């Protein structure tokens, strides 16, 4: 019983870590978490249309290199 619980716990843990890894990798490319954005829009601005992931991604891609934020380090 215990081992089963542990196993499912491990899987859940692994999933959570993997989600964080994906989130980090996307953020390194300047793309924040999409699900979080959708949740934010629904909670705070229900009147605004929710963009699909493709639109969201394109907007973020353009925003990353718009003046100022393009400074990359040495």
């Amino acid at each position, binding site marked *: 019983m215990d081992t089963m619980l542990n196993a499912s716990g491990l899987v859940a843990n692994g999933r959570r870590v993997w989600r*964080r890894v*994906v*989130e*980090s*990798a*996307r*953020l*390194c*490319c*300047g*793309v*924040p*978490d999409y699900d*979080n*954005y959708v*949740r*934010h*829009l629904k909670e*705070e601005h229900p009147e605004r249309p929710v963009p699909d*992931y*493709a639109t*969201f*991604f*394109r907007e*973020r*891609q*353009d*925003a*990353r*290199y*718009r*003046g*100022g*934020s*393009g*400074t*990359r*380090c*040495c």
Partner: protein
Amino acid sequence: MKGGIAKLAWAALALLGAVCFAVLALRRGESINALWIVTAAVAIYLVAFRFYGRFIASRVLEVDATRATPAFAHNDGLDFVPTNRHVLFGHHFAAIAGAGPLVGPVLAAQMGYLPGTLWLIVGVVLAGAVQDFMVLVISSRRDGRSLGDLVREEMGQAPGTIALIGAFLIMIIILAVLAMIVVKALAESPWGMFTVIATIPIAIFMGIYMRLIRPGRIAEISIVGFILLLTAIWFGGEVAVHPTWGPAFTFSATEITWMLVGYGFIAAVLPVWLLLAPRDYLSTFLKIGTIFALAIGILIVMPELRMPALTQFTDGSGPVWKGGMFPFLFITIACGAVSGFHALISSGTTPKLLANETHAPYIGYGGMLMESFVAIMAMVAASIIDPGVYFAMNSPAAIVGTDAASVAATVSSWGFVVTPDILTATAADIGENSILSRAGGAPTLAVGIAQILHSILPGEGTMAFWYHFAILFEALFILTAVDAGTRAGRFMLQDLLGNFVPALKRTEAWGPNLIATAGCVGLWGWFLYQGVTDPLGGINMLWPLFGIANQMLAGIALMLCTVVLFKMKRDRYAWVSIVPTVWLLICTTAAGWIKLFDPNPSVGFLAQANRYRNAISAEELIPPSMDFGAMQQVMISNYVNAGLTAVFMFVVFAVLFYSIKAIRKARSVGDRTDRETAYVALQPHEVNV
């Protein structure tokens, strides 16, 4: 009881660091394992983070777990998002890590591994990490505003504008020096050239896929892109030995310079999704992956350091770069110990994503410790290769000669015994025609990385593969930085020029866009071109200029931190930022002064310019210049470099003047005068994110 055990563990860790440090410092004349350096560094980083980092957080800045960060106050799901601290750590580290921490230690290794290693460890703990962390907190308490805005708000309009102009010039120098590293790595190397050119169609394919075919699927196309890259590296080896294609991809340094300038212009005006963004993603993942691979490689291979702890070049006569340990060691090792550019990141995207102020030490201080660790690994990579090979690779041809026999003879006469056979065999191992005089850091580092990776995954011909993998990894993120930097520089230039000609401010219009882009590319292209064509110039001319500029920017950021501490009425803790500020100002002004006025022409810009001017008027040719036109050019570039150094010194002294003024004013009043945004409490459920 539990606290007691923890205290014991920390004490043991501190002792371990001290012992490793002592071994490093005291053992001479016998080779030492790289693990001593790595262990000393990691132990000291952990202790510094736990005690000094936490001291700055709780006592000096009084970070407040209940204070709403901009991510909560302005949460928009896009730029301002409360982010998990580990995720944000990754983002911040990916943004600050670049070519600087890799190249600086390689160049500094000419004095032996010890001076550079000591400064990397001490510098990061007392200066670099302090700067990154403090700027992050200061910016976070001001809605995540940028460094220029912060200087303007806390010190006034004039120093704000001066700092902005300084930042623009520093950016130009950085772009030139980065491009120079690529030129030095790719000149006369058909294999390297082919793989780097191949990244362009690969990136465009990825860009189209991500934008139009399956939008936003970064992971799958990055894996495809990575496989294509490896294929390109393998295929590059075939191209290099091909009788027609090999010579077709062989270019001189000057040709590559012109190609880079043209490329920089085109890449900066193309839509970002087509070339810049996909290559940016690929280079980010490759960078992080290679850093991990290198760390694991060093732990598995446990290589011996073959470079002595100290060489005779600590006296300033070294062939790689001229100048004594003080101040030039502290200028050469730029980013791994302290980097002004990080202040731009710490006041850029990171503070807008910070979920809680208590995460700031981990991200700001910890992120910089990680960067310093990367620099330590670069120092290890440079020190495990045969010192004779190191000096053959990094000394200019004017000093050591151009063929293997004379280079081996010269380098051996310095006490680093090497035979011509070893030099040609090393070149053959890595699949290049020659390894001589490839200063710039990247090729040396690539040889070190290739040796480490080759020890883990040995095999016939794999050394050459790993060498070109390492070259590609550096070229890729350098070119990305050049693209993105040119774009950012264009916006800065439009902003600056727009003050005089308002029409130029329109960033969407094609005319001003092209003019500003051409201006930006022209500026860094000019420095690159003069560095490549000047027989005595190149990396040993541009790198000190870059180091001075970068450390001066750090000085400006730390002066801002000091002003803010006084304005917050935390005078008794102001030494935390004053100590590194004073040290950086001493180093940079001493270096700037020497670079300007030293009578030795190989060190002082003005002495060199005057030497050429006198020779031209006396109609004497100074070899290796072929004609007076070339000498004219050397003279002009030395005057320009002198002018630029003077401007940097003016910028830093101007900011110092305004800082002192602001501090005196702050001390004359009884209340806090800093411009922190008003305290807003986090909701209870927002505290634990």
